[in-house]
């Protein structure tokens, strides 16, 4: 059942737990809610351990065995993916939702040529064969600015540079014409000029093909380059959400503020704020806000009561006692 209008992805109250060495389970993703509109680009920003990767894995149905969805729904064009069997998920993956990971080398099978790795999804998800297939392979390569020459197609992954591999991976991911592309730190392994070009390419592909993007990253600036919406995740919870430029200009959560302050920009090199301390341990139960221990603005209420996501303006939310209208943090 596909709904032609409405969001392409809607995550409702998603909670994921992970098995601990002592046998108990710890909640690593805590009632996360968000939606991505058709053709939209949303960024999910957080440090390692924030739960962002597990969230994206849950959408793909690729959670490691130690993790499982405790509650919530993941609605891909209206269908709940959590309830799907692994066979059903196999049909959905690649065709309706696809993923690009940080390390292109592990996404590509070193024993197969680029041509065969590109043909597989085209054959499988779009049922192409023969001449049509060959044509589609060429189109897919050209779309990502990879020369579609016979030599290139016959090459193996190890013969390509990092940037080329990531482009090849992107072409493969998009071969099935998914409605949603999840990119998990796609540029972390690339050098700075390649990164810039790749992000530009991602924007181009979105414009021409119209798929939605969920960009998972730890770098706010990368997200800013590609996305219209951004969600900031901290210790398993979404702590702020809103249009990218607004969040940058006027962050409503101290963590977001600190993240922005920690970005060294070329013009302003001397001024570099660092966030002291560390995120709470996995599974650590806290009575109040999970960022309180590291927050410059925290007060008593922050340690005793968990702040809910409150609305600021029509399309912004933040999880903080201090920035609630009437709160003590001036924004």
């Amino acid at each position: 059942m596909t709904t032609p209008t409405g969001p392409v992805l809607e995550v409702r109250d998603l909670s994921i737990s992970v098995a601990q060495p002592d046998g108990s389970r710890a909640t690593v993703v805590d009632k996360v809610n968000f939606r991505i509109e058709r053709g939209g680009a949303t960024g999910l920003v957080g440090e390692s351990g924030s739960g962002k990767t597990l969230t994206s894995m849950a959408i793909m149905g690729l959670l490691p065995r130690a993790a499982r969805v405790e509650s919530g729904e993941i609605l891909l064009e209206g269908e709940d993916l959590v309830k799907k069997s692994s066979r059903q998920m196999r049909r959905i993956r690649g065709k309706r939702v696809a993923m690009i990971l940080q390390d292109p080398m592990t996404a590509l099978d070193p024993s197969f040529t680029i041509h065969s790795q590109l043909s597989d999804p085209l054959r499988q998800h779009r049922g192409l064969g023969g001449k049509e297939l060959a044509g589609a392979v060429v189109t897919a390569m050209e779309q990502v600015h990879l020369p579609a020459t016979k030599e290139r197609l016959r090459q193996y992954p190890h013969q390509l540079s990092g940037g080329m591999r990531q482009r090849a991976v992107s072409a493969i991911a998009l071969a099935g014409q998914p409605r949603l592309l999840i990119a998990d730190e796609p540029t972390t392994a690339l050098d700075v000029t390649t990164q810039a070009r790749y992000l530009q390419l991602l924007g181009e592909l979105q414009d021409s093909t119209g798929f939605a993007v969920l960009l998972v990253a730890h770098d706010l600036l990368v997200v800013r380059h590609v996305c219209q919406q951004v969600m900031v995740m901290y210790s398993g919870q979404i702590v702020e959400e809103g249009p990218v430029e607004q969040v940058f200009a006027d962050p409503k959560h101290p963590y977001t503020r600190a993240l922005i302050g920690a970005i060294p920009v070329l013009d302003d090199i001397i001024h570099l704020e660092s966030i002291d301390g560390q995120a709470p341990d996995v599974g650590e139960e806290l009575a109040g806000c999970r960022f309180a221990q590291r927050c410059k603005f925290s007060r008593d209420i922050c340690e005793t009561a968990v702040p809910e996501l409150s609305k600021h303006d029509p399309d912004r939310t933040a999880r903080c006692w201090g920035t609630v209208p009437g709160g003590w943090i001036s924004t």
Partner: protein
Amino acid sequence: MSVATIGAAQLPGARILRRPRLRLMPTLPLIVLALIVLAAVFAPLLTSYDPVRNDIANSLYPPFWMEGGSTEHLLGTDNFGRDVFTRLVYGARVSVLLAVISMVIAVVVGATVGVVAGLRGGSVDALLMRLVDMILAIPSFLVALVFAVAVGPSFRNLVLILGFLIWPRIARVVRGETLLLKGQDYIKYARSCRVPTWLILLRHVLPNVLPVLLVATTLEVGEVILLEAGLSFLGAGVPAPQASWGVMIADGRALVATGWWIALFPGLAITVTVLSTNMVGDWIRDRTDPKSRDGR
């Protein structure tokens, strides 16, 4: 905790022995192996019979639960009147001792060769690995047989030939792991600090090679026991009248119809022992292999 670190809590060595809950694996095979070792060690206490002395008058008693059997000979006697249970536990001694000593030889030689070949690379590596390939290419059973026949069967010779045949398998595995380690930054760092190669070997390579070595060792133990059984079966292993499981099978072969218990119990013993060592080896590998991170 990122996806990758979920299983990292199972880093090799750190957690193997600290599981608070009792599980089927590896406890069951470990208990079995412990029993076998204990039986081997305390053999004289478990039975008062002499494993090699003949007592024709009492030959071919079936196991105690059968008609004609008695509890004096729990598993019956063989055609020479020797108590089967006694020979079984003394045979365990042979197998355990053999496994331990020949594996020690195989590991010492194999690990050294593997680490040296892996670290040095180049022509040294090529030479050593061709040697390994040559030995591995020889049908081991045949060689052992010929060797035993030529030099004369004895426990000592058996240990030597088995050690000789097994060390290349250990060397290969260790070399592979060493090659992986060579690329690790901490080894490159130690080199950059001018830490001498032999110290790098001792402090960095060896401890990190240990888990793989352990797995390979446990898996080869089964092989050693089987080889000994086969050789003894053919008379090229432990010399009769000494008890060993292989010898017992040889003795019982002709009497399968009339004295099936003579060959069955040692056969079972071999199966159970090898199965247990394999299970333990597999379990260690599953726990220490970082590639199987998402399983628990």
